[in-house]
């Protein structure tokens, strides 16, 4: 008893410090580093630059195109309503700056400078100029973390827009992905446009994803195509976050971890 007491007297501080360090680390792990991302967002705020002049010109051009698109979309919507197809699209989009990339090399993630206070929700769809970028997997009050579609763990049901050949997409880091087809002999050519299919459980159908770069029909067990993602995943600066129309209904994803596929 006495020796134990002496040991404790001598080592109490050290034991205390060790348990403090481990419990703090555990706490950060359990809260998914929310405090760290929040502080990071505040620290990087001065560096979140506004657009330059060239970008502004480009933006103006883009805006013109967008407005035309909007016009066409609303016409389309009206025609669809005439046909009885009611789309449940809500117009709550948030434009968010990309303030950081993944904190380690195995995951393809980005960190956005907008969070639940600005209306970002978990499972929201993230798109950039060019097409689909990813899906929000964690939200704090002012930041959110996005699992990119270039991550191998994010698997998406996709289709070839021209021939409607179905398959699923698996990320391959950077801006490449591999599409595995369900058919044995899919109708696909290099240059075909790939978009999300109605089989996708996590994403709404019809979002542009990329372009077929090369096709390997002899690959077993299923034919494969290499897809070049159309969004510039490596240079993203701003993205658009839109609420997920699918998450409202039956969707239930087991865990927050980046490892959930469909």
């Amino acid at each position: 008893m006495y020796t134990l007491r002496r040991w404790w007297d001598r080592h109490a501080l050290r034991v205390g410090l060790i348990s403090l360090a481990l419990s703090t680390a555990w706490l950060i792990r359990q809260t998914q580093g929310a405090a760290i991302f929040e502080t990071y967002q505040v620290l990087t705020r001065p560096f979140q630059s506004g657009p330059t002049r060239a970008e502004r010109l480009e933006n103006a051009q883009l805006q013109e195109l967008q407005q035309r698109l909007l016009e066409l979309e609303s016409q389309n919507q009206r025609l669809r309503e005439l046909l009885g197809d009611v789309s449940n699209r809500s117009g709550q989009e948030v434009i968010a700056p990309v303030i950081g990339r993944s904190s380690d090399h195995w995951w393809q993630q980005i960190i956005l400078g907008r969070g639940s206070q600005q209306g970002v929700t978990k499972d929201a769809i993230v798109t950039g100029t060019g097409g689909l970028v990813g899906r929000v997997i964690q939200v704090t009050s002012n930041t959110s973390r996005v699992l990119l579609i270039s991550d191998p763990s994010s698997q998406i049901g996709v289709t070839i827009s021209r021939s409607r050949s179905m398959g699923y997409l698996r990320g391959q880091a950077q801006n490449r992905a591999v599409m595995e087809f369900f058919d044995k002999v899919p109708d696909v050519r290099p240059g075909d446009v790939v978009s999300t299919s109605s089989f996708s459980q996590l994403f709404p159908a019809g979002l542009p994803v990329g372009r077929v770069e090369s096709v390997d029909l002899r690959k077993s067990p299923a034919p494969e195509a290499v897809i070049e993602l159309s969004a510039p995943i490596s240079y993203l600066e701003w993205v658009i976050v839109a609420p997920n129309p699918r998450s409202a209904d039956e969707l239930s994803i087991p865990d927050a971890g980046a490892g959930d596929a469909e």
Partner: protein
Amino acid sequence: MISLMQWNAQHRQILNYAVTIASVLACLFVLPTRLPGMELLGVGPNWLLIWVVAWSVKRTPLQGTIAGLSLGLIQDGLTALQPTHALSLAVVGFLTARIQKQRYIQEDFISVALIVFGMAVLAETIIALQFSVPRLGFAASTPHRTLAEIWFYHQRIALSSAILSSLWAPAVYYPLNRWWERMNAAEQAQA
């Protein structure tokens, strides 16, 4: 420095803790940034690994392991819970402390850079092993990556992360080491 000597031992200790924790936070905040010159094939330096090596070089294996474990748990929180970084960083802390560099090599910079290089390769290998073990049939929970993909990716990551981390290692090691040496000196002067 003289002012540090005159400080009360307790205050000095608190300052020491504050500087140590601040350095960890600094490493955590650089982790998600990719500044120009800090990126190779989309991979940045592994700042937490550099910190663990800097901490463990002149400490006991137990201290190294616990530092690695704590920082690994934090990094898990920042990315994904599985596979865990705590294992790889704890092994790195333990091994770095076991090397007992100061007994064999007096010179500092290059040897630390070399240790960081080796440890970065080791850490990425441990994570790659964690990715591939489920493949071998222990748990079929991660059907995402094929073995070939994992190890191809591992080659790329391990090499660029090791090169970048070892180049940036002195930036973390030098100031921290100077600080801890001064604290030790002050403590011994007082004792």
